């Protein structure tokens, strides 16, 4: 059959690696995109991902992957509920509240996960396919695409579809102007709450995809900044889900390519290679942003502005 060195195998390997690297970005990014389309800017993605990662890991250790996913989703929802209480209920500044959530989440996840550090866990793919390690390379690659990766790839499409349904249009309307939507009789706060909760659940699952599947472990701060990348990718995508898919795959691919180049012995300093994913994202953003009218139309107009229910 095809050995691990052949061109097809290498290409498949790169594709699978890109998808796996992009999965947490896609999950968290889609959640944040929906949140932002409703007008709420939640900068607490990194903290939420960490809490989701810790709880997902603990849940899996206690009761298997299903419980783990449930715990991660619940943890993400809990964190975002806290954020919603502050920003939707108490009208706190969204930027500061999100940053506070991240700081809180980093600490909370470390506290909660303290006793579970260094606990080995079979990855999600191995749990589903116990003989994964012995399979031929090509089959193995496909098996490594665990359910969370599939969910991650499907989410932007699901979000794109949703945003065109009636509830989705409503959400977008709320994101453009809370006042107008309210005047039309819609409960702005409730819609935003659902959007924020959705974002939280997705961020929790994104964290779980790291601690349950990609690198099955819990360790303090293991998300290592991916929440911030996801936030940046939402901006990159101009708040359009399919662009988010493109952005996440681009970022994931260039990260993998950076390592490929290193392993191929290309004579560039590893530090400069490490800048490639970031530079690539900026360059592509510049290329796609040049149409100024389109950009003005794509940022949700009410993004970041608190909405007070008039009395």
């Amino acid at each position, binding site marked *: 059959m095809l050995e691990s060195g052949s061109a097809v195998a290498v290409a498949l390997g790169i594709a699978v690696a890109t998808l796996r690297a992009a999965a947490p970005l896609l999950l968290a990014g889609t959640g944040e995109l929906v949140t932002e389309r409703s007008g709420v800017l939640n900068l607490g993605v990194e903290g939420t991902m960490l809490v989701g990662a810790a709880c997902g890991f603990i849940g899996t250790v206690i009761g298997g992957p299903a419980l783990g996913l449930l715990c991660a989703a619940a943890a993400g929802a809990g964190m975002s509920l806290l954020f919603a209480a502050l920003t939707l209920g108490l009208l706190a500044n969204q930027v500061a509240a999100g940053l506070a959530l991240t700081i809180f989440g980093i600490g909370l996840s470390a506290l909660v996960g303290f006793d579970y550090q260094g606990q080995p866990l079979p990855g999600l793919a191995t749990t589903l396919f116990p003989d994964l390690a012995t399979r031929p390379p090509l089959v193995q690659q496909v098996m490594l695409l665990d359910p969370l990766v599939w969910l991650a790839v499907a989410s932007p499409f699901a979000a794109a579809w949703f945003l065109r349904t009636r509830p989705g249009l409503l959400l977008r309307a709320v994101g453009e102007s809370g006042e107008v939507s309210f005047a039309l009789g819609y409960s702005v706060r409730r819609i935003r709450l659902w959007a924020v909760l959705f974002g939280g659940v997705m961020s929790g699952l994104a964290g779980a995809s790291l601690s349950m599947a990609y690198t099955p472990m819990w360790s303090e701060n293991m998300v290592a900044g991916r929440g911030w990348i996801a936030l940046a990718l939402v901006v990159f995508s101009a708040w359009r889900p399919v662009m988010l898919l493109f952005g996440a795959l681009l970022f994931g691919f260039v990260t993998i390519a950076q390592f490929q180049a290193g392993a191929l012995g290309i004579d560039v300093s590893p530090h400069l290679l490490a800048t490639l994913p970031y530079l690539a994202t900026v360059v592509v953003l510049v290329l796609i942003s040049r149409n100024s009218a389109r950009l003005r139309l794509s940022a949700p107009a009410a993004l970041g502005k608190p909405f*007070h229910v008039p009395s």
Partner: protein
Amino acid sequence: MRLRLERRATASRVMLYASPLAAVALSLLAGALLFALLGRDPWMALRIMFLSPLQSRDGLAELALKATPLALCAVGIAVACRANVWNIGAEGQFTMGAIAGGGVALAAGDGGGALLLPVMLLAGVLGGMAWAAIPAFLRTRFNAHEILTTLMLAYVATQVLGWLVHGPWQDPEGFSFPQTRQFPPNALLPALLPGTRLHVGALLALLSVLAGTVLLGRTLAGYRLQVVGLAPAAARYAGFSGNGAVWLGLLVSGGLAGLAGVCEAAGPIGQLTPVISPGYGFAAIIVAFLGRLHPVGALLASLLMALLYLGGEGLQITLQLPLAATGVMQGMLLFFLLGVDVLILYRVRLDVGAVHV
């Protein structure tokens, strides 16, 4: 029966000053509970966290030292945010400022004399400005949103620093470790308080607060900047250049972040190493917002954040409390601060059986 928020006619001046105090009181209570749950004496823990850093000359100096880069960056970010310009990547401008200033120090060798330090500081400011000019250009020319460009460039700046200290600027007598030579004595910031690490950078931070206040409150450019941020359509109608505000906001915040960077390198560190900033650029964002986007507020908030850092260290050292606990404590304090702030613009009303929307 429910609680609702009713907007006040005017912002409550009482709550403006009382809300931080109320928030601190609430966090103290929540913190005491947290420490008790973790098996420590709550009052001792609170004392160590909030009072101990303030109880010695050295402690106060360290507080000011830690607050300096936060204040410098936060003033800049506050100015930028007033124009709705989101400089999330101040961290990168900080790093570039350190590189620029450090580069001057390393190039000067033993020369330069008394002029070296001012040139270094200027280089730091220019370095930060140059790095911020890139997102400014990309935004004004290509409509690339600065949230993304500044953040991505922050990561790039870290890698550039890594490349420099591993490669071209590596100390030839440093056993191939990633660090530059140590800066010559005339390239180091003079101490402000003898026997402590507090350096002239603190004065520069105070100056920046003054300059920021003047810029926002007294200059036409600052006025234009704020109108662009508050009412973009009105600003366009009045002929205020949105692009001009973007440039001003990014250059000011970039320059101040760069100044903070060179001060850190030429102050407590004394050379360039792979890690110049433990996240000041990001922490400054929250400092700016805690300070309600006003330079004086940013100064006060930077002192508070510095106190939280120092207190957290103290808790680790003295009570062997895990670092994670201080992160939770900091988050809680910030939550309370943000939550109680609502009472400035709104009052809480209790509706008893009333018709509500």
